């Protein structure tokens, strides 16, 4: 796309402030939801599909006081899963006249074009993570097959929206969702991290406004803490860190047009117990603790700069996958009416 750096009508004498006013876009917190908080940089430039192998086992033993010889067997089954990769590309053409015109506004055009290309690519990576490049093919975290989807039920006073909900009951509801997610992964009692990725108006209300009301009986945070603080504090006391992350594209993306909040458990430390471990098979390696994945080939887009007649052509590109949760337990889609 071109640059529009038109001629200005100015009155003399004047003073032009040297600093620019730049449009601020929301810096999405989506990457908090990735295992290790970053994209897995494992792709080659040309890889079209990512596969991951899956090993499962069923075990059986015989137990008698003396030895018999007809014994059962363990059976190991192997299969695999897949997600597609997409090459994101964008192009800028410019010449020294464009650079000079933008320079009249104190804008370094090559740098502005580079950052613009990266912003476009990064915003697409965010969309691919949450919603998938092709939603109908189960791409994107919000389309994870078999993910848990929960809608906020009315509180005991019949309030159904976040702004009217009883703050203490809301905290307990969030804690219940976190417990359910960790419980389904046998993670209770183990240190870890959970991410609540949602719109600012939801997460912000939890953090700033929803002060737990004082009641005739004592409850956590009554009169002193917000829903968000109660959730964080109780999780901290259970060795689970809550990362609050913001992305306003989730407004209206929940069930029935409600706001979606994604409760993600990005890393699965393989649960184990010292001594006799009934999860011994999971010691098989190599394995990864990353539960929520998005792949890339480069840490920042590749730039290919080519001289063209009277100027330069810059193509920026990066290959990625959509957000991918090989184990659906890591993804919980909470729908909250605002």
């Amino acid at each position, binding site marked *: 796309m071109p640059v529009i750096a038109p001629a200005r009508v100015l009155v003399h004498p004047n003073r032009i402030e040297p600093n620019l006013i730049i449009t601020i876009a929301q810096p999405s917190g989506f990457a908090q939801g990735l295992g290790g908080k970053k994209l897995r940089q494992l792709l080659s430039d040309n890889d079209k599909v990512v596969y991951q192998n*899956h090993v499962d086992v069923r075990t059986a033993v015989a137990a008698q006081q003396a030895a018999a010889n007809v014994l059962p067997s363990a059976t190991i089954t192997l299969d695999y899963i897949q997600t597609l990769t997409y090459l994101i590309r964008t192009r800028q053409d410019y010449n020294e006249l464009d650079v000079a015109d933008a320079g009249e506004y104190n804008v370094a055009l090559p740098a502005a074009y580079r950052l613009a290309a990266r912003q476009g690519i990064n915003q697409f990576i965010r969309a691919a993570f949450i919603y998938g490049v092709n939603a109908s093919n189960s791409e994107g975290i919000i389309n994870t097959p078999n993910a848990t989807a929960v809608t906020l039920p009315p509180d005991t006073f019949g309030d159904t929206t976040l702004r009217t909900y009883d703050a203490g009951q809301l905290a307990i509801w969030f804690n219940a969702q976190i417990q359910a997610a960790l419980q389904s992964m046998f993670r209770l009692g183990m240190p870890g991290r959970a991410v609540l990725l949602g719109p600012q108006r939801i997460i912000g209300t939890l953090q700033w406004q929803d002060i737990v009301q004082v009641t005739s009986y004592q409850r956590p945070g009554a009169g002193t803490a917000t829903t968000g603080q109660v959730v964080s504090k109780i999780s901290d006391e259970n060795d689970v860190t809550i990362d609050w992350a913001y992305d306003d594209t989730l407004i209206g993306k929940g069930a029935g047009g409600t706001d979606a909040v994604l409760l993600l458990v990005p890393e699965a430390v393989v649960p184990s117990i010292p001594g006799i471990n009934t999860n011994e098979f999971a010691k098989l390696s190599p394995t990864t603790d990353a539960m929520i994945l998005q792949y890339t080939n480069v840490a920042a887009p590749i730039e290919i700069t080519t001289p063209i007649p009277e100027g330069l052509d810059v193509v920026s590109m990066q290959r990625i996958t959509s957000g991918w949760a090989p184990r659906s337990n890591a993804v919980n889609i909470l729908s909250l009416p605002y």
Partner: protein
Amino acid sequence: MSTISFNPTLTTNISGGFVLSTEGYVQGVFLDDPSMRTQLEGGQVGSGVSQPLWGGLAVALNVQAVGANAQGSTVVPATSAGTIDGWTLFNQGMAGIITPSSTVPLYAAGASINFARNGSLLRIAVAVENTTILNALASAAANVALYWDPTNLCITNSSSSNYALPSNTQLLALSATSKTVTYSGGNATWNATGPAAIIRI
């Protein structure tokens, strides 16, 4: 003629990634036994078979054309009690095809498939129709009458429109948390906690 479908674009994930216990069996395998393992035979899925085969199915084992013996018996689904000659098995059958959407090895028409004949005395894991029948079979005698359900492709205790298994079939063990096969829309997938039985054939 059966073929195996392939969806190249669908993003998939695993099911049953967290289970309480792994105790159980996997449909379509025989339990390891150093003296019996040589009973495992190889054959070829019949050219007229309309749906791919997998392990743990009751099949007829037909003789090949004169002189065409190298590929073993022709394996086709059993069509009556009298045609249950043996059972398909996954053991060593690594030529079975899986895709990300269809994670159970499938053997299409013309494919090599392994099986065991009745009378081989192998102990094989087969799917049971449902947990109600599984529970009804608990405490049964080893020679309890068992039937092959040709629609749901599993064993059952009801004779209604099903095929009786050979009378020397013995029921050895039952499990409600085994891996069984679900076939739908051209895809065969593992059910992580299905009902299964060990039978000696």
